[in-house]
């Protein structure tokens, strides 16, 4: 059966003794681009902490900022709590609302990291708890957040989500059957 992106609703997707996959409620997402000389001015103006190392996450209240690359950050905030986006920034930068581009899935359970190896060429354990990375999941670009030892979030473009979800659900059952 073909799953369409609009068939996916927040809640349980798959669950086994090995792992659980849930789709999360919508959040506000922003892409921020700025060069290093402007980083401090942009951070001060937005009143956000912009981490310096690729993969590091900084939290300001409920807002999370992940460094995706040397001049690129992903900002995630609860819907309606995006005051930072309307602040005036006098330094060159680009702040773009990409909230509707992705869906987010939470992957938890004792085999969560093993489940991700079904599609991730990189070792998920190379991402430390509290960090995140942009990488691939079965050839689709994803952002992986590792919130805890056995607790991941995957942001994936909504058109690729049905494919990723099918694979995650299959893996969830297979890992429990081992």
């Amino acid at each position: 059966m073909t799953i369409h992106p609009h068939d996916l609703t927040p809640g349980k997707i798959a669950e086994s003794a090995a792992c659980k996959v849930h789709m999360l409620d919508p959040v506000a997402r922003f892409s921020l681009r700025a060069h290093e000389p402007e980083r401090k001015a942009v951070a001060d103006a937005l009143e956000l902490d912009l981490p310096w190392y690729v993969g590091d996450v900084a939290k300001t209240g409920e807002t999370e900022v992940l460094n995706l690359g040397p001049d690129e950050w992903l900002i995630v905030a609860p819907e309606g709590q995006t005051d930072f986006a309307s602040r005036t920034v006098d330094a060159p930068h680009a702040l773009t609302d990409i909230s509707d581009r992705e869906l987010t899935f939470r992957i938890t359970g004792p085999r969560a990291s093993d489940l991700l190896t079904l599609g991730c060429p990189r070792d998920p354990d190379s991402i430390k708890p509290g960090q995140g990375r942009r990488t691939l999941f079965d050839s689709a670009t994803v952002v992986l957040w590792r919130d805890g030892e056995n607790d991941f979030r995957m942001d994936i473009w909504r058109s690729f989500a049905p494919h990723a979800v099918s694979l995650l659900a299959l893996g969830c059952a297979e890992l429990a059957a081992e």
Partner: protein
Amino acid sequence: MLLIRCPYCDETLPELEFAYAGEAHIARALDPSSVTDEDWRDFLFIRSNAKGPHYERWRHVHGCGRFFNAVRDTVTDRFLTTYKAGEAKPDLETLTGDAR
């Protein structure tokens, strides 16, 4: 699968996260209208096609997104080193091959 070290992420990662982007250190003329047809042809089309160590560009496209440079041996497929875009060409004599 090749493992490639991204100099921006400072991590050694699977080739699938990367894309090859042609020979490195080929700079576009600052004043293109003063370039002869022959030099322009060389800039556009003529490449070294090295058998052995080759200076080449890669992009960590499914990661930090950055372009960087590498020296890869085209015979063994071994990466001798990778370095940030804009840095000077490393001297082949000093490359030990353990940077992968």
